[in-house]
């Protein structure tokens, strides 16, 4: 039998020599051009990192190709970032420009460093998950094609982080991103009583509902859904295959904005709902790409230097955000879940 509980490989054996030699001794960094970081150590060693955007869902051919590049320019070392970009770690300054030339010739996008749009953190969608309200990879490709120019720049007001999740489980970073794209349902689950009787643990299913819309129906050995209390989160379907909720006509996308995780200047914050619903329109999701571009451009044209999307909106006020973007404000924007009261305006200070 094979070894178990071996754990991951020891990272110390996978670091390039320049990093081993300067570990914990880095002095400062610069951004010499879009997509490139230059780190200088206390002893004067210099490491260049060339950051390249990746679709995250990649073939082994892609991995072998970036390995060949890392062999040619980086002595066989590379890493991936927490936003699923690839970083080529170049210790020989003379190899930076030739690497960039070859990357450009191959069509690899260089960017995502500093005040730029970085890669979109995203999820499985229709490629592999059973609970999605939309696809992840397709929307990400459509949005990144549309916003491509901002990936290779460094002159945005601040960092721009876009995230995508295909259902309310929000795997990833949707709840804390500058702009977030979220798959949502709009119809209650369709209970298959036969399937419930076959193998659903009813108390766990009942407890899974955030609004208490599901109650046991002992006479039928099943459950009843109070449809007026259901807001279609789909968590009951996660718990039981008997609660089918996918609905091709009514599933779609919500857009949230203004979240961040960094502590710089202001505390980390959640993204807030600004567009409750856009249709699923594969393969290019034009309504989604247009909405995201419109929000990003309004931020670009109005934010002060150094302001993340959420910091800009908090300064001007959400009422100004809605008037500037001309996004219609509806009853769906007003929170009515358990922590809602804190979001109501308990001051007479506001703008018309």
């Amino acid at each position, binding site marked *: *039998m094979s070894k178990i509980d071996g754990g991951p490989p020891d*990272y110390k054996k996978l670091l390039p020599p320049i990093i081993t030699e300067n570990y914990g001794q880095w002095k400062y960094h610069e951004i010499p051009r879009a997509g490139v970081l230059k*780190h200088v150590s206390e002893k004067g060693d210099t490491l260049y990192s060339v950051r390249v955007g990746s679709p995250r869902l*990649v073939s082994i051919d892609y991995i072998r190709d970036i390995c060949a590049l890392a062999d040619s320019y980086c002595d066989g070392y590379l890493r*991936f970032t*927490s936003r699923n970009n690839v970083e080529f770690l170049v210790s020989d300054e003379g190899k930076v420009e030739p690497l960039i030339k070859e990357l450009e010739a191959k069509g690899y996008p260089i960017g995502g460093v500093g005040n730029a749009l970085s890669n979109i953190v995203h999820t499985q969608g229709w490629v592999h998950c059973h609970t999605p309200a939309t696809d992840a990879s397709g929307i990400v490709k459509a949005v990144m094609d549309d916003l491509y120019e901002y990936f290779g720049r460094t002159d945005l007001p601040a960092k721009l982080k876009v995230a995508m999740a295909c259902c309310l489980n929000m795997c990833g970073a949707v709840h804390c991103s500058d702009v977030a794209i979220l798959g949502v349902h709009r119809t209650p689950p369709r209970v298959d009583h036969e399937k419930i009787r076959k193998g659903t643990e009813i108390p766990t299913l009942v407890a899974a509902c955030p609004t208490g819309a599901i109650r046991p129906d002992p006479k039928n050995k099943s459950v009843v859904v109070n449809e007026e209390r259901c807001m279609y989160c789909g968590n009951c379907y996660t718990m039981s295959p008997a609660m089918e909720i996918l609905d091709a006509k009514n599933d779609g996308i919500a857009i949230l904005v203004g979240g961040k995780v*960094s502590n710089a*200047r202001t505390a980390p914050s959640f993204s807030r709902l600004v567009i409750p619903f856009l249709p699923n329109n*594969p393969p290019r999701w034009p309504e989604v790409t247009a909405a995201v571009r419109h929000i990003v451009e309004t931020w670009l044209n109005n934010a002060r230097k150094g302001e993340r999307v959420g910091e800009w909106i908090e300064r001007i006020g959400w009422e100004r955000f809605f008037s500037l973007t001309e996004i219609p404000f509806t009853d769906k924007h007003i929170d009515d879940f358990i922590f809602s009261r804190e979001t109501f305006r308990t001051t007479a200070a506001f703008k018309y």
Partner: protein
Amino acid sequence: MPDKKTPKLDELEHGPWPSFVTEIKKAAVRNESAKDLLNLLERSYDDKRGHWKHGGIVGVRGYGGGVIGRYTDLPEEYPHVAEFHTMRVNAPSAWFYKTETLRTLCDIWEKHGSGLTNVHGSTGDLIFLGMKTEELQTTYDELSDAGFDLGGSGSCLRSPSCCVGPARCESACYDTLDVCYDLTSSYQDELHRPMWPYKFKFKMSGCANDCVAAIARADCSIIGTWRDSIRIDQDQVKAYAESGLDIQGMVCDKCPTRALKYDHEKKELHVIAEDCSRCMHCINVMPKAVRPGKEKGATILLGGKSTIVQSAFLSWVIVPFMKMEPPYTELKEMVAKIWDWWDENGKTRERLGELIYRMGMTKFLREVGLPPVPQMVFRPRANPYVFWPQDEIVK
């Protein structure tokens, strides 16, 4: 069966951003299940819905997690994705690789699976995307022989992940890579054999910029900080001023605690150290001139999670400052107490944050033996509904 047409997905091969469709097609040249995945996805684009059956429980011997089982609901039409499981491979700290390491992984995956991957999953694992049940054990055996192990899934410790830390960042306040590797190695049992009310995630960021989003995406967020003063190099401040940086406007005026004073005459920057909340802004804008202090460690925060069930939570402060030195005994002793308490009190599928919220911070702090400090709250409670423990009142 003749190759199906995929006009909708073909459209996503256009445009400048690298295309996942092109990637699936590359794998489909040699692999039937990658080809069927492409066709099934086209079908989903036509139908505007997913075509994966609910759930799926598969795995390897000795472990209770690490593999996500998946079956299509259209197995007759797409037989090569009738079974299409993913395997989570625990990635090295901060995702550093040698090319020979990645090639070994590719060779194993070419033999046993679809040839498709996610680099990486959001928790940090390398994802082998799509394999048959019969391939699981042999794939694991070969991975294990090559020095790899599975990551976590289910109600267990999930694979910890960390930022690039001291490997390549001047702001790192502790060794995030080492803490990540140490915790992962120490808690292999908790990672591979689910035994808890629900999932539990660790993330380590070397400073308050939080480059792995620990505060939002981990039940236990370990965020680097320092306890003394930021260090300012006045020569470098002058150099920034002379290069045209508006130090008053872009640095001092944006300081959240107004702890910075800029002397225009002398081109000098001064800090009122006790007012600084170590947000990282001045360091981010002037990395050559401002550095973290020397007395370094981490803030420990708990409770971060996504929406389901009670709303999303950001982690909140539980220990304002902890030294982070191997073998990390103080951290591990605290974590052990917290896990015991959660395991004892947590309901099925109740994240730690929701449990603390339901039971109350007061009870949590008393039962795990942590002292209450003002750094834990933005502001004290406004209501007077105070629970008094009976041992604190006059009898």
